[in-house]
C-alpha cells in the first residue's frame, strides 16, 4: 500500500469539496444580485448537505457496486444495484478514501446547476430536486462512464459495439478523465432544462441584472482553480503492482495532468480576454474569472490524453468559444442566469469532443483517424440525451409536488428574504445605524426586552 498516494487522495477529496464550499458559492454568489447572494450560496451548501448523505446511502453503490463474486451489479450497463452497499454496508473500509473522493464530484456537479436558476427557484424545490437528480441523472452517468457501463471502454459498451473488441476491451475506448460528460455536460444540460422550465427572471433582457460583487467572483474562480488540481490530478488511478516502471509512469502522468490543467486554464483566460477586447474594447474581470473556469472545464475530460501544447490549444478554443456562447441566451431567449450552459455545457463539449482531435494517442490530428472522434461525439450526445430526459422528468415531479418558482412579489423582494428570512448586507440608514428617523421605536423595544 502506498501511503503517499492515499495521503494525496485525502487532500484531493478535500480540495474538490472546497470547490463547492466556498469556491463555487463565492463564484456564483458574487455574480448574483445583492438580494439573492445568500440563496445562491445556500444552494451550494445544501448540495454538500444533501448529496453528501445520499452518496453514502446509495450513490456509490449505484455507480460502482459489485456482488460478492466481484462482478458488476450493472443493470443493462445503465446503473449498478443501489442496495448492494447501501450505507456502505458490506463495503471494504480500505476503499473509503475513494468513496469520499467520488462523493465530492457528485456534490459539485449538482451545485453547478444552481447557477442557471438564480433569483427565482424555490429553495424547497431545490432541496427536493437534489437527491432525485443525482439518483436519476448523475449516478447512472457515473456508472456508465466510470463504473464499466454503457459509455465506458468495457466489452459491453457502445464503443465496443461500434468498433469492436480487442483483448476483452473496446478497441477504441472513450476518454473521460475527470468528468467532461458526467460532470460538466450533465450539469450544463440540467441547467438548460431547468432554465427553460422556470422561465426568465423578471426584467431579463430589459433591465440591468448586474453582478453585485465581482471580487467575490474572482476569489471563487481562484479557489476553483486550486481545487481543480484535486479534481484532475486526484483522478489518476495508482498502479496496483508497485513496480518501479509503473511508479515512474504514475509520476509522469501526475505531472502531465497538473501541467495540462494549468496551461489549459491559463490559455482560456487569454482566449476569453482576447474575444472581449475585440468585441467590446476591454478585457473584464468577470471575463478572466469565467475564462479560468471555461479552460478547467474543457481540460477535465482531456487532461491525461493531451500533450501540453494540445492543452494550450484546447484552452484557447474553450475560452474563446465559451465567451461567444454566453451570448446565446439573449439570442435564443432562455435565462441561464449565471451561464451554466455557456461555460459548462459548451466547455464540456469542447473538451470531450476535442479529445477526438487532440489526443496524442487516437486523435485525428495525430494521424490516428476519426474513430476516437466518433466515439467521443457519441458519448457526449448520449450523456446530453440522458441528462435532458431525466432532468425534465425530475423537475416535472418537483413542480407537481411543490412548484418550481417563487411568486412575483418574492422575486422582486429577493429570494434571500423570501426563502431564508435573511439579507446579506446591512449598511444601516443615513441618520444613525438602524434607527428610525421618526422616534426610536427599534431602540425602545430592545430596552423593554432587556428590562423584562
Amino acid at each position: 500500500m502506498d501511503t503517499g498516494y492515499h495521503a494525496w487522495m485525502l487532500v484531493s477529496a478535500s480540495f474538490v469539496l472546497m470547490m463547492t464550499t466556498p469556491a463555487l458559492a463565492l463564484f456564483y454568489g458574487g455574480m448574483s444580485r445583492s438580494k439573492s447572494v445568500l440563496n445562491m450560496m445556500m444552494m451550494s451548501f445544501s448540495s454538500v448537505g444533501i448529496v453528501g448523505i445520499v452518496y453514502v446511502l446509495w450513490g456509490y453503490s449505484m455507480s460502482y457496486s459489485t456482488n460478492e463474486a466481484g462482478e458488476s451489479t450493472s443493470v443493462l450497463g445503465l446503473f449498478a444495484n443501489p442496495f448492494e452497499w447501501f450505507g456502505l454496508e458490506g463495503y471494504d473500509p480500505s476503499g473509503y478514501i475513494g468513496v469520499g473522493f467520488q462523493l465530492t464530484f457528485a456534490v459539485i456537479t449538482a451545485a453547478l446547476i444552481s447557477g442557471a436558476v438564480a433569483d427565482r427557484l424555490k429553495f424547497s424545490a431545490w432541496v427536493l430536486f437534489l437527491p432525485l437528480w443525482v439518483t436519476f441523472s448523475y449516478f447512472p452517468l457515473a456508472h456508465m462512464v466510470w463504473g464499466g457501463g454503457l459509455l465506458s471502454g468495457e466489452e459491453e459498451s457502445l464503443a465496443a459495439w461500434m468498433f469492436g473488441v480487442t483483448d476483452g476491451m473496446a478497441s477504441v475506448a472513450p476518454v473521460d478523465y475527470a468528468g467532461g460528460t458526467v460532470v460538466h455536460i450533465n450539469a450544463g444540460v440540467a441547467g438548460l432544462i431547468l432554465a427553460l422550465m422556470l422561465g426568465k427572471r423578471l426584467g431579463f433582457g430589459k433591465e440591468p441584472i448586474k453582478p453585485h460583487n465581482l471580487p467575490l467572483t474572482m476569489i471563487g474562480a481562484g479557489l476553483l482553480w486550486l481545487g481543480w488540481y484535486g479534481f484532475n490530478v486526484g483522478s489518476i488511478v495508482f498502479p496496483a503492482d508497485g513496480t518501479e516502471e509503473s511508479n515512474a509512469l504514475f509520476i509522469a502522468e501526475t505531472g502531465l495532468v497538473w501541467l495540462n490543467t494549468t496551461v489549459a486554464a491559463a490559455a482560456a483566460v487569454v482566449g476569453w480576454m482576447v474575444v472581449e477586447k475585440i468585441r467590446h474594447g476591454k478585457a473584464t474581470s468577470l471575463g478572466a474569472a469565467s475564462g479560468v473556469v471555461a479552460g478547467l472545464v474543457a481540460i477535465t475530460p482531456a487532461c491525461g490524453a493531451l500533450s501540453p501544447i494540445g492543452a494550450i490549444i484546447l484552452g484557447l478554443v474553450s475560452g474563446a468559444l465559451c465567451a461567444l456562447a454566453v451570448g446565446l441566451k439573449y439570442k435564443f431567449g432562455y435565462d441561464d442566469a449565471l451561464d451554466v450552459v455557456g461555460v459548462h455545457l459548451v466547455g464540456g463539449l469542447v473538451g470531450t469532443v476535442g479529445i477526438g482531435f487532440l489526443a496524442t494517442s487516437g486523435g485525428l490530428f495525430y494521424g490516428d483517424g476519426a474513430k476516437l472522434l466518433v466515439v467521443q461525439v457519441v458519448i457526449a450526445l448520449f450523456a446530453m440525451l440522458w441528462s435532458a430526459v431525466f432532468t425534465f422528468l425530475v423537475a416535472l415531479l418537483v413542480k407537481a409536488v411543490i412548484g418550481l418558482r417563487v411568486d412575483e412579489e418574492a422575486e422582486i423582494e429577493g429570494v434571500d428574504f423570501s426563502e431564508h428570512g435573511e439579507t446579506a448586507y446591512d449598511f444601516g440608514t443615513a441618520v444613525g445605524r438602524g434607527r428610525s428617523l421618526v422616534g426610536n421605536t427599534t431602540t425602545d423595544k430592545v430596552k423593554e426586552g432587556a428590562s423584562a
Partner: protein
Amino acid sequence: MKLVTAVIKPHKWEDVREALETFGVAGMTVSEVSGYGRQKGHTEVYRGAEYDIALVPKIRIEIVVEDSDAGDIVDIIVKTAQTGRIGDGKVWVMPVDSVVRVRTGDKDEAAL
C-alpha cells in the same frame, strides 16, 4: 447673498477644494450624487451583455457666499474642474433670502 452649486467630476474634487480654500471660502456642503447630462451615462459589459448605465457618479458642492464673491468662486470652480472632456459638470448661482447660524442665531452676512 448667493448659493453657488457645482456638480463636478469626482476626481476633480480635491483640486477644487484646495483652490476654494486658498481663495478663502470658509465652509461648504459636499455630497456624492449621481446623474447624467448630454453624454447619457456609460456602457458596462458583463459576459458580453451590454448594460446602459444612465447615472454616473458626481460630486455636488454647495456654498453660500456674499454677492461680491459669487463670480470669483464660479470662475475658480470652472477653471479647476475643467478637463475639456464630456461630463465635466455644471455650476449655477441662485439668490439666497436669508441665512441663520444655528449655534448663535446670527443672521445673514454675519452668519456666513
